[in-house]
């Protein structure tokens, strides 16, 4: 059916038709200025966001002579992957010239249990605060939120003294505890908000069914916490993977994470700076959190919606 036919059938109600085409069917999709503006803004913003990563990638593919020319934005004249290989395998940090690779496994060793334990702790906190509040629980929570504002370094001395007095200083458990401590405020906040939005009837039903604190948590609440857990995992993985300060002090030499080597490669003050290797090393170090971001970005927004917007 065309517009013309309709006009023929319905002449009576036709309003004076200025343009010659009677409005019929879907509104013609004008490519409106607004739409172009939206995309223009987003693209410009995206370019702004991509500047550093562009510089990093381009630089990492250049040889040192090309870098000395100083044309930061130019594409590599003779692309080379040598810096990447160097960064991963050969770059020196002190005596050892094994690149980043040895630290990678340490980072994994630190990150996995830290993320796991900190999320378990925080989710239990959120759950207890929401469904089993005892006297003073909310005061504790307030203290925790206060802790979120404390610059890490302020409590580093007491932490060192405390951990060494229980013999956990400079050990894997030590660093895991530290990450758990500093992840706790924000994660607890997220989980608490998330659980607060769960219908309390679910909790009551489980209690009537005879389930106790732990069973309700593990069988009912935890399986429902996927969206917020995704957010927590992303936050923690990026935070812990990128951490240098705690890793170098609390992990002990045997467990030094990748960032220590990255710092050694990047921050060497005397001697030639190999910027291409630096950039390659940086991208390699960031690869894990970035990967997690790209895989779960969609759930991130959704999870945030579940845990951050209310309250």
């Amino acid at each position, binding site marked *: 059916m065309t517009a013309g036919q309709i006009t023929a059938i319905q002449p009576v109600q036709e309003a004076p038709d200025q343009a010659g085409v009677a409005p019929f069917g879907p509104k013609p999709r004008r490519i409106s200025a607004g739409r172009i503006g939206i995309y223009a803004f987003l693209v410009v913003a995206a370019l702004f966001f991509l500047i550093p990563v562009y510089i990093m990638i381009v630089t990492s593919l250049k040889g040192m002579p090309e870098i*000395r020319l100083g044309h930061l934005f130019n594409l590599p004249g003779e692309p080379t992957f040598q810096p990447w290989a160097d960064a991963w395998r050969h770059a*020196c*940090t*002190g*005596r*050892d*010239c094994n690149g980043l690779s040895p630290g990678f496994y340490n980072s994994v060793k630190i990150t996995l249990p830290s993320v796991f334990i900190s999320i378990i702790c925080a989710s239990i906190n959120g759950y207890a605060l929401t469904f089993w509040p005892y006297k003073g629980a909310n005061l504790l929570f307030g203290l925790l939120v206060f802790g979120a504002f404390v610059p890490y370094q302020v409590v*580093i*001395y007491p932490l*060192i*003294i405390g*951990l*060494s007095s229980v013999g956990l*200083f*400079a050990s894997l458990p030590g660093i895991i505890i530290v990450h758990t401590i500093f992840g706790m405020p924000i994660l607890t906040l997220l989980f608490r908000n998330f659980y607060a939005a769960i219908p309390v009837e679910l909790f009551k039903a489980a209690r009537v069914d005879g389930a106790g604190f732990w069973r309700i948590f593990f069988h009912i609440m935890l399986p429902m916490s996927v969206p917020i857990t995704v957010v927590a995992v992303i936050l923690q993985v990026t935070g812990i993977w990128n951490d240098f300060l705690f890793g*170098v*002090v609390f992990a*002990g*030499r045997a467990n030094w994470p990748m960032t*220590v080597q990255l*710092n*050694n*490669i*990047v*921050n*060497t*003050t*005397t*001697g*030639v*700076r190999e910027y291409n290797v630096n950039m390659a090393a940086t991208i390699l170090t960031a690869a894990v959190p970035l990967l997690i971001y790209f895989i779960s970005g969609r759930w991130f927004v959704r999870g945030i919606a579940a845990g951050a917007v209310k309250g």
Partner: protein
Amino acid sequence: TDLEVIHWWTSKGESAAVSQFAKAFDNDGHGDRWVDSAIALGETARSTVMQRVLGGDPPGAAQFNPGRQYEELISGGKLLDLTDVATAGKWDEVIRPKAIGSACLVDGHWWCVPVNIHSNYWAWYSKPVFEKAGVPEPKNLADFIAAAPKIKEAGLIPFAIGGDGNGWQIQLLFQDMVTEALGVAQRDKMYTTKSAEIAGGPEMKGVFTQLRTLKQFTDNGYANRNWNDTTNLVITGKAGLQVMGDWARGEFAAAGMTGVKDFGCMIGLNEAKPVVSTDGDIILFFKQGNADVEAAQKRLAALLISPEVQVAFNNAKGSMPVRGDVDMSTADPCMQKSLKAVEDPANIVTATNRFITENTNQQLNELVAQFFADDSMTADDATAKFATIIGSSD
């Protein structure tokens, strides 16, 4: 016995140097092993050491700079007393100049091992730049300041400097200028007696005024530049002159340049009055409460200062050995200059760090950096502030 050593020798040249220590220690015949813990950036490495000490897990040994950074470690009883090793090795005889030894010799006990001498008192310049600008190569700072406008006219940067790390490059320049302006004796007096009078005197004002003048001859990219990029400006002939310690020589060498035709070096800021500062690196040993480990620590201490290791290390590092009885004939012309200068005690300048605490040091860094960055700050203001900091330091 395994011995963990924390240091910030992370660059290629440095790691080659530190490998000399490690190799010697690993092969000392006692089954020792050097466990290498490199952490880039001196301040990061140092604070890690401090935190490890606080946590009761100190490393076996750690790199430090001579100065007052480890005062509290000594008074807190955290360090291993090396006096017996020193006596056996006759350290007080072989180590020269005396000033370098005194960094470790406190109250008659040896608390650390000096391993090299670095002098901050150098200016490096590009011969082609001076040629291009048609001015003679400088013999002192005044020469340079006179020549600078010409270089600027030639479209080049007369004076190269960088402002990274709280402005330590500027502070280094500044300290050189202070020594130059006050003379070694007056300078030492100012720092030892914390004399606000000298610090606020006309010579100091002159230093600040000259600093402001030098600022006019920098480019506007200096703000965050680190020292090797600064050196690179001189190497590539973009800038005329840089004031930097002797480690800059490594950069020139790495770029394939020789001190004969490509670049020049000025010892001190005045060739007529050569000076060598006694900065450098030292190694501290921490008490472990374990006789075996302490024996290994002492073995390492003795090894570090032994002639063969000294030569191997300092050749790799490009610094001067702490003992005069070793053969350094392979060193380049600039090094030869300082090896010559160091023989005369009159040319020795004690490192500033030895007089002032790190707290004061950083305050000075900031003052100088701020003065350098902020053109609205007058030389009078700066001098007054300088006097306050010196006067109230401890």
